[in-house]
């Protein structure tokens, strides 16, 4: 099993980031939340591997800056 990649892997980081923001342009907060949820589910299914997903969930939780959980 391959481990969760934590080194650079995006070929065009600026391009992806711009695309991500572009998708949210003009969306209300509720629409943006729904978009993000769909995106997470699509990506989760693509990854599939249970251990990788569990690692990713924990990584996301751990990476919240001190005192800013829930912001």
């Amino acid at each position, binding site marked *: 099993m391959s481990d969760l990649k934590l080194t650079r892997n995006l070929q065009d980081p600026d391009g992806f980031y711009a695309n991500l923001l572009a998708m949210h342009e003009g969306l209300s907060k509720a629409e943006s*939340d*729904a978009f993000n*949820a*769909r995106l*997470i*589910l*699509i990506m989760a*299914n693509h990854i599939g591997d249970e251990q990788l997903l569990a690692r990713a969930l924990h990584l996301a939780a751990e990476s919240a800056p001190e005192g800013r959980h829930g912001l």
Partner: protein
Amino acid sequence: MNKIFEIPLYPYARHPDQDATHPVRHKVIIIGAGPVGLAAAIDLAQRDVPVVVLDDNDRVSFGSRAICFAKRTLEILDRLGCGEAAVEKGVTWNTGRVFFDEREIYAFDLLPEDGHKRPAFINLQQYYFEQFLFERVQQLVDAGKPIEIRGRNRVEAIGAHPDHVRLEIETPEGSYELHSDWLIACDGAGSPTRRMMGLDFVGRVFEDNFLIADVVMKADFPTERWFWFDPPFNRGQSALLHRQPDNVWRIDLQLGCDIDREAEKRPERVIPRLKEMLGEEVEFELEWVSIYTFQCRRMERFRHGRVIFAGDAAHQVSPFGARGANSGLQDVDNLCWKLAMVLEGQAPERLLDSYDWERVCGADENILNSTRSTDFITPKSDISKVFRNAVLDLAARHEFARPLVNSGRLSVPCVYDEGPLNTEDATGLPARTRPGAPVVDAPLGEGWLLDALGQGFTLLAVDVSIPEDLTLAGFALTTLSVSAEDNPTLRARYLGDAQKAIYLIRPDQHVAARWTDYDAEAVTAALTHAIAKA
């Protein structure tokens, strides 16, 4: 026309026990003549254990209540002698449809697996289920089996002692006392026995109210299960439509948290709701309306000395997945052979502690599954609703999201992995029939594997020769020699890549141990272990 639930089936009748100078002592008393209590009585009586059932009522329950009976339950009913009646009357369906907002997002076919005598499940009103069990009780009575139901006998007080239980019973003609070696409490979610004994019942309480209506209609709806998330006729909530026998349809409508329960139950409130759902032109008649909330919880232990709890009295789940009555039947299946062996002096009392271990394991699995379904159907936070709706939106277009849609995960029997009665598994045999698992049915000649199993322990030999008359550790085993040669289903389920196999099967049709060859010593050791003797 009188409906079955309007007729007293076991009316109060004075019993000589009520006039005895000293309290009469029985071997087993069961409290509650619902599906679980009746099934336990049948199972014990079939094993020649005398049993008295006390019920505060005198007829089957009113309203459809539990309506989905899973395959394992039907297999247990077969063992109890009334599976055929239930399957004949019940409705089978294979297609389910899921709706979100105003549109159908997808339909699914259950495609039940071939090679089983019984379907994945049937829809049947609980009153019919109870009626068939009751008719079986009468058959056993007629055959001279030691079984008795006393109607309108309400237990008012319980004294639990180390070697017996005392019961104070109220009847229309006053009270009397009984003693019993063992007591099985099958008195439902509100179990008075549990309350009288001051026992715990902890878990999660859900605030949502659900309206259930049994509707009689001649409408031309297909025999399918329809589930709605956030439909126009019940905004922000869910709804379910299910077919039952006799043109009775079961409708479940989620109502939310803060409602006036009495007002919501009134026909002038219910009928417009249903018209909105079914269409103005559909003619229907209301048979039963009820509002329920639910909990997901269980007792810490199901055995308290000589008092044993089974069914809803021991554990409660949300209705999604039909895990209530179905798990209650599995409790009975697990308990009765053990209690019979303990009463016969064939097994030590600690065998009953394995009931606790195994059925607590089953209850936890059911609570986990039904809690997850509930969290999907009734999202408890903004973000859980966002994800729920995201799943539904994706499911409308993409197959990958459909397994995430959770409108109930249908009851399947628990596998007692790591269970205290299991013997370490042999290598190379199929996972689904490993020790702790319920036996998987398979065609056998003109009949079925499950029907060929004995009432006690069975030794199943697949392409191995074993002695026909087999007594091990003092027990006469039922032996069943079969061949997988022209039976690919049996091969897949019991051999896999192996050439031959031996299975030791418990009286409740769970696998206790298995090997790839016959060794009398190994079977003896496994059998002794499976009855907690070693």
